[in-house]
């Protein structure tokens, strides 16, 4: 899934980066992940926090999604996962699950990306568009996606691997007509 360019839309797959699903309910869990990752755990719905390396996305009141900006070496990735697992899951604070290959990340850039999304997504992007860091989980062409507003007209979209080829091809087909 190589970079494709259309009028004011660029679509590219960013691979492979570390992705971890974090779940937990109590305050200790929230402070612990903040500390371990040097990141403020976002507790407001549909928001995220980022530092130079990592992004932490709110998914639900007891679920967060962590992904790295860059590709990490196997060693670094394993050690981050192990560290989190030992500090959280093992001590019964919550769960830590590697989902790096569960999700494919597709980057969308350009002035018309929201038009592209509107061809198959019921979500109202009117406010989302202008709030950097906003996160939404919704449907695109009937497929579950997580969308992270990384920057102005710059989105990271996560789709489950088994759906990714289909969604990729659908997005490219859509982009032709925008």
């Amino acid at each position, binding site marked *: 899934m190589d970079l494709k360019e259309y009028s004011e839309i660029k679509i590219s797959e960013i*691979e*492979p980066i570390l992705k971890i*699903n974090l*779940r*937990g309910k109590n305050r200790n869990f929230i402070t612990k992940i903040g500390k371990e990752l040097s990141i403020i755990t976002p507790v407001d719905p549909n928001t995220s926090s980022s530092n130079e390396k990592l992004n932490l996305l709110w998914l639900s009141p*007891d679920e967060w999604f962590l992904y790295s900006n860059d590709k990490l070496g*196997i060693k670094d990735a*394993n050690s981050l996962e192990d560290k989190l697992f030992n500090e959280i*899951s093992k001590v*019964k604070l*919550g*769960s*830590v*699950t*590697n*989902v*790096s*290959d*569960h*999700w494919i990340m597709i980057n969308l850039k350009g002035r018309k990306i929201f*038009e592209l999304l*509107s*061809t*198959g*997504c*019921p*979500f*109202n*992007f*009117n406010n989302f568009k202008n709030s950097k860091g906003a996160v939404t989980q919704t449907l695109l*062409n*009937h*497929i579950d996606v997580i969308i992270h507003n990384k920057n102005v007209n710059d989105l990271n979209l996560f789709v*489950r*691997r*088994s*759906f990714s*080829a*289909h969604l990729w*091809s*659908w997005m490219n*087909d*859509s982009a032709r*007509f925008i």
Partner: protein
Amino acid sequence: MSKDLRIANNRFIDQTSRISFKFDGKTLYGFKGDTLASALLANNIHLVGRSFKYHRPRGIMTCGSEEPNGILQIGNDSSMTEPNTRATEIELYEGLEASSQNCWPSVNFDIGAVNNFFSPLIPAAFYYKTFMWPANFWKLYEYFIRKSAGLGRSPTEPDKDVYDHRYLHCDVLIVGGGISGIIAAKKAAKNNLNTLLIDDKNVLGGTTIFQQNECFKINNSYSNEWLKKEIESLNSFKNLTIKTRTTLAAYHSYNYLLARENLTDHLDLKEKKDKIRQRLLKIRAKKVIIATGAMERPLIFNNNDRPGIILSSSIKKYIDFYGVKCGQKISLFTNNDSAYETAVSLSNRGVSVNSVVDIRDKTNSLIVKQVEKLGIKIHWKSSVVNTNGYKRINSIEIMKLSDDGTAVMGKKINEKCDCLGISGGWTPRVHLFTQSGGKLKFRDVDNVFLPDKSELDQISIGSCNGDFELDELIKNSVNLTNKFLKVNNNDYENLEVVCSKEIDKKNIWLLPSDKPLKKTKSFLDFQNDSTANDIKLALREGFKSIEHVKRYTTTGMATDQGKLSNMHALGIVAETAGVKMGNLGTTTFRPPYTPLTFGAIVGRNVGEFFDIARKTPMHDWHVENKAKFENVGQWKRAWYYPIENENMHEAVQRESKAARDSAGILDASTLGKIDIQGSDASEFLNRVYTNAWSKLEIGKCRYGLMLNEDGMVYDDGVTTRLLENHYLMTTTTGGAANVLSKLEDYLQTEWPELDVYLTSVTDHYGTVSICGPNSKKILSKVIPDLDLSDKEFPHMSFKNALIDNIKCRVMRISFTGEHSYEINIESSYSKSVWEKCFEAGKEFNITPYGTETMHLLRAEKGFIIAGQDTDGTMTPVDLQMDWIISKKKYDFIGKRSLYRSDTIREDRKQLVGLLTEDPKEVLEEGAQIVAERNKKPIEMLGHVTSSYFSPNLNKSIALAVVKNGKKLKGQKMFVPMKNKTINVTITDTVFLDKENKRLNA
């Protein structure tokens, strides 16, 4: 083109760009900006079709979506042709081909027209009444009726055009870009609201945009000029989106609206290519303003359907907007003032107006006076009692009306004409309002239904809200919009509006004739050919409800949904039954407002995108190795891998033999996988599975059955204990999403106290399953440092391992009864591990096998497939799996249901094996099983759920559910098929290796 029908110069039609098109094979010319209807009229073509039932010649009657007659077939290409399009809505383009429908051999000579002479024999519901008996003759009747009733041809090949969908979110949606819609749009936009204005025409401004009449002025300008400037001023608003050629199709609750945007229908054939033809807009609006205007009513009198009889307001639009004269000598027939506007327009453009026939007593409004000043004759208190001319009207007969309007009298005047404009008043377009669930109220003074109460955040303004006088329309639109949008400016409040106002109103639903009603043809529904007489007949035959009358006479049931006919049908019913019209209610208007193409509804969900396709990480390998695929849910799973010309049976026989004899390899990545963590994980599993989990050792796997609360088997799979508080659960491929959602449901709602977290990892891991007597040797080549001895790595256990430094989980579990392993590894590496195993297995003839072989292998072992051998009515006991129900556990999902009176019945259907008397005979899945062949009615005891020919046993085997099956082991049964009866014996469900020796082979 007849030059004398086209007047020079107007601003809507580009008379410099000539367009050629074909109608019924003949090449004609029009201009850019014409509709097909206006171009045909400019070519002096009125006759465009034959009526549905009587095959009477019919001509264009309107200029909009309510057109009942100008229903044409567009295009000649077998994939692009489109039936039942309205000529009044088709914009002319170079290369357009149109043809008449419902006539043979041609519109000018139509054999079906004999129906017209037999019409007294074809009353309302003729088809219902005549073709009822004998019932089994219907098949024969239907063939001929369908043939003669055809309206247009469907395309025979796939549509080549591209369609799309788009979601739009706005603060305010304004439907209709007439004068009130424009006022509302400007107010909304000025108020910084995100505004969307849609209109079905290509030019905004409704009917006002071509109203250039001394009697209608705003701030000392003609109303059209004033509105033109207003429309131009809309360009400055960035928060206002205007979509023309966009028809609102449906208005649903929560202000969810569907509209069709036409993008290329007006373009030349060449320009249409590679563009989206139509786009279905899915609009979410916080507020909706309906400004859809009103449509003119026809008048109901004898022979009111001849070509050349046109709504008077349409004649006005054809002359003022398109510059087309509908005739050279035009007569007008009206019950209100609007026909006088037409008279003025025609007269100003040099068309001679014979006379105006008005059913009212003399009236003195501004516009009437203007017509009198022009010297046009007016027949007051008169009616047209008949028209003449077969394929085109050539004269009308006029008589005086009695005082009560029920009869005509005096001398009959014959007036020659080539066109008759009719106006029966106006009907507000309340369709969208009622679609949205709004209730209507009735206004007696001019017999209109108006919007009343609505649950939604919406208003109707302008003539669709019953404002027909320009000054009031503006005043009320402004006030209503201000209030609705909470606007605080005084725009439009000090306008100087001059307009003619109607003083006298009078209405007669069915105009009298000098002939008895039975001898007249007064059409109500032009498209479905039903007459006033039909309505009266229905009432005489006892139909009272308007909904019944509608269905019996088919009035209002054509593709126009009775836009022109409904009010008259209601009026005549009310009058005849002596009921007040307001109390009668209306029929229901349903979406879509105008017909939608299937293309627009489907959008781009065609071909490759018809359904979602999920692929495993090894998908490409399967494709390269010529696998045939099977759809399992949305997954594409390798079904079998034919070599050369093998058919499925041959491939499956080979694959299943190889798996048992040496080694097979299967892609099991589609199984659902759920990562379970938390200190209560074991307790949680105890509650969701029927068996006990607390004592499962770390590193061990266990098979579990999951029930619904009703005790019926829901899903199954193997769960592995990875750590003290960490499990990996697998589910069936099809059940994965539902199982996760069901488990989350219990955790969130019933057992929030449990410390358990679930995360789907289905797509994170690819699963390579290798089985067969040589699987151990193969695995030892792939992971040399893993101890595969039965002692270290027994059946139902798991090991963490590394393949090329990548972590993976290896489970020794088996769905085939063979010694086998499943390697779970991150999806990015799955394909290379698959290839590694395949390489390593080559010396053992490792054979890739698909789902069909997997099903066969497990059936040999009597393993169930949830969803194939179970159907939501089977308990574990029914499946003879009593061993999996823990007796010690206090509770689990479905436990209590297992001893309800119904579930402990002994004669429930139970899972059994079946062997056929002839070992070569393979049963059909779904075939019924009976014990006695001669008893009638035959008692069906059960059915076959799985059936295969087993190459390993060299005989046919089957699983089945049979009433009281457990006790019937050894009994002979019958499977009756279409041409034969198959003898079978009930057996145990396990056909192969009952001692499970092969697991450790």
